[in-house]
């Protein structure tokens, strides 16, 4: 089970990103637990300055803008 955190104040892009992560995981058959982090303090402490940000198992893999689906699959597989 991979723990994925999507950092963002709850704008539309952040929602989309969370959905994209879930879809990618389903496609790859990887079990994930996707948590949306909306608290500004928690976002700042994670080192995310441009949202949405994605961390997988505690490691930040992406910040700023919608990620590409292919990249998400790459991060999940790694």
């Amino acid at each position, binding site marked *: 089970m991979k723990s994925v955190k999507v*950092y*963002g*104040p709850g*704008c539309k*892009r952040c929602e989309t990103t969370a959905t994209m992560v879930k879809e990618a995981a389903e496609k790859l058959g990887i079990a994930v637990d996707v948590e949306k982090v909306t608290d*500004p*303090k928690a*976002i*700042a*402490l*994670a*080192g*995310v*300055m*441009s*949202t949405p940000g994605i961390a997988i198992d505690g*490691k*930040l*893999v*992406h*910040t*700023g*803008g919608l990620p*590409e689906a*292919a*990249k998400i699959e*790459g*991060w999940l*597989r*790694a």
Partner: protein
Amino acid sequence: MSTELPLSTPRHGWSWHLGVVAFLILWALIYQQLQPLSEGLTSLLPVERHSHTGEAIAFFLYDVPKVLFLLTLIVFAMGVVRSFFSPEKTRAALSGRREGVGNIMAAGLGVLTPFCSCSAVPLFLGFVSAGVPLGVTFSFLIAAPMVNEVALVLLFGLVGWPVALTYLGFGLAIAVVAGWVIGKLRLEGWLQDWVRDLHSGASSPATVTDTPLTLVDRYRQGITAVRDILAKVWLWVILGIGMGAVIHGYVPQELMARIMGADAWWSVPAAVVMGIPMYTNAAGVIPIVEALLGKGAALGTVLAFMMSVIALSLPEMIILRQVLTLRLIAVFIGVVASGILAVGFLFNLLF
């Protein structure tokens, strides 16, 4: 970890470069023909060309494609340029920077760094926690929304380059000076308590390891920028220019000059106050600006209105309320509004 496939193999690079060159040539060819095309279209309609309706329609048919063409080109170019910048690099450049130089750099970087107003709070926290002085952070936060390529393109396309350059210069000046003043006031104590406690700890967070971008990746980012921004502003451009066309064709010149002309001293503060609760992007406000200017409204008053609409917005204040106390927000509004007022009065005096 970074095992993701490169998005494009170098082999395809040349076809991208050729594509971009072909696009630029095609762009220039069509852009030159816009005026005759729009006149041709207008003449097909069953209205007298020099009637009010004819004027309004010709204005609309020429300005809408012109603005959309200019936006496409400049937003693409800025998308490519911005791919060289990131909030993380900007923070590293600004942290521990002294006030003065720091304010100037922050205002400049505010224009070049990719920034979305929904990221304003995390960005603010990221800057302050890494030791970027408060005033320098504000210079960035003022410049980022106010001096943007959409505003500059629209001013250039609709009003001309002297006004666009003036806007650029004064927008940066306000960001530098307002940030510097806020820094001098030593208001760090007016941050929300937990923000002050954040000063330690978050300063060296794990950053994403970048894979170096190829030029093709940067083109892709430019295209993404065009798609995002045009999708957001096209309706505003059409509505705004439509509104502008109506003013252009119908509103009598004397009325506008009396309300917004240089003689009425109160017009500048009134424009600033009216602009604060209004929230639209540059695209929505600038066509109105053009039509107002064309009808004799004073340049300073109109620019003050535009800066106020873009730079001081209630939704943004509500977002920043999470990290700033009301007192600090009040100072922020006060300082920036004073800067805009000064620019408005100065312009009305000079021109």
